[in-house]
C-alpha cells in the first residue's frame, strides 16, 4: 500500500449492512480498496485508508453508505473559509491552478 496512510480515526465513512444487497459497486469504485464482501454483504476493511472521495456513496443503489465527502486539500479548505463556502479547490477560477 506504499505505506501512505493518513491520520487515524478521523474518516466519516459509515456502512449500513442491513441495507447492503452485495452488488459490489463500492468495491469497484473505491480507489483505496476500503471494502470487501463477506457473507454476501459489504464490509469496511480499513477505514483509515478512506480519502472521503464519495464514489461509494454515489454509486450505492441501496443508499447503504454515507460519507462526508469533499476535498482533502489544505488550500481548498482555506479557500472555503475565505469565501464562506464548502471546502473547494479553485480549479475553474481565472488564472488559478489546481490539482
Amino acid at each position, binding site marked *: 500500500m506504499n505505506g501512505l496512510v493518513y491520520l487515524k480515526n478521523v474518516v466519516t465513512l459509515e456502512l449500513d449492512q442491513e441495507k447492503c444487497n452485495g452488488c459490489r459497486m463500492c468495491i469497484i469504485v473505491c*480507489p483505496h480498496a476500503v471494502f470487501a464482501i463477506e457473507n454476501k454483504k459489504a464490509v469496511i476493511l480499513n477505514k483509515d485508508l478512506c*480519502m472521503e472521495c464519495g*464514489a461509494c456513496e454515489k*454509486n450505492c443503489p441501496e443508499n447503504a453508505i454515507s460519507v462526508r465527502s469533499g476535498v*482533502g486539500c489544505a488550500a481548498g479548505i482555506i479557500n472555503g473559509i475565505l469565501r464562506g463556502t464548502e471546502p473547494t479547490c479553485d480549479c475553474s477560477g481565472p488564472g488559478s491552478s489546481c490539482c
Partner: protein
Amino acid sequence: MNAHYLTGQVNTIVGTIPQISTVWSRQDLWNTIKVRWSVGRMDYKVEPGIYAVGNPGESSLVFVTANFKLTFDHVRRALGGMDAWLLVLDTKGINVWCAAGKGTFSTKELVRQINLVGLEKIVNHHKVIVPQLGAVGVSAHEIRKNTDFSVIYGPVRAEDIRDFVEAGMKATKEMRAVKFSTWDRLKLIPVEMANGRKYLLLIPAIFLILSGLNPKGYSIDMAYHDGLRSVFNLLIAYVTGCGITPALLPWIPFRRFALKGLLTGWLAAFILAYFHFLGKTNFEIISWFLMIGSLSSFLAMTFTGTSTFTSLSGVQKEMKTAVPMQIGMAGLGVIAWIVSKFITL
C-alpha cells in the same frame, strides 16, 4: 475546429464524426511539458462531444473522458490500434477526478452528452465505459434510470484500458487502486513549485529591501549581502516544502504533512547553520529557524491537495493545530528577524 490531432472523419447515421490520432505529435509532448509547469494550464481543453478512434462502427465500445487536453491525450494514446468511440464531457478543461469532485464530470453531464450526440443511434449496444475515478461524480444507477445506457467502470489509469478490454471488461485489483508512486509525485513537483510563483518574487523582494536596515539607518551594501542570504534561505524553505517533502513523502516520519514539512525545513536550516550560512547573529539564526520551519510546513501541508490519499476530515484535523503553529512561528520569526537588524546578540 482545426486541431492537429484530428485525422479525418467517420460517417454515421447522425452525421460525420471527427476521427482522432492515437499517437502524440511533438507538439502534444511539448504542450504536456508546458502544462506540467503550469504554462497555459487553465486553457488546455478540447471540444466536448464524440470522437472516432480508428474506424468504429455500431458495435464498437464507447469510452467516456474529460475535456482536459492532457487527459484526452492519454486516453487517445491508450486506445491506439482499437476501433472505438470517445465521448468527451465538458469538464471545463479539468481532469476526470478533480472534475468529478467539483461536479462537472457528473451524472447530469454524461446524460446530457449521451443525448446531445445521439449515442443510441451511433451504437447498437447499451454500454458506456467510464473511468473509475469518474465515479466520484457519476452515479451508475442514475445513468441506467435516465438513459438507455449502463455504466461499466473502467480502470483508474488510461494505460490499463487495453488489458481491461482484453480481460473481458474486468479490472484487476491493481487497476482499481490509486497509487502515488515516487514517479507520480516527482511529475507533480513542477506544478507545486509553479503554484507559488506570484509570491516567489514578492516576498524575497521585501526581505531584500528590509535587509538594508541597521542601527545607523539604511545600507545598500547590507541590503545586498544580507538580502541575498535572506532570499537564499527563503528559497531553501520553498524547495524543502514543495520539492523535497513531496518527493520523499513516505520516508519522512509523521503522518501530518505540516510536521513532515517542518522537519525537512529544520533539517535544511540546521545544515545551513552548521556551515555558518543561516544568519550572522544567534538572534537572526533563531528567526530563520522559525521562518523556514513555518514556510516549509505550510507548503508541505498544501501538498495534501495534490496527494491521493488525504481525507477532508483528516486535513481539517491537521490544520486545526498546524495553521496556528505556522502563523505563530512566521510572526515570531519576522519580528525576531527585524529585531536582529538592530541588536548584535
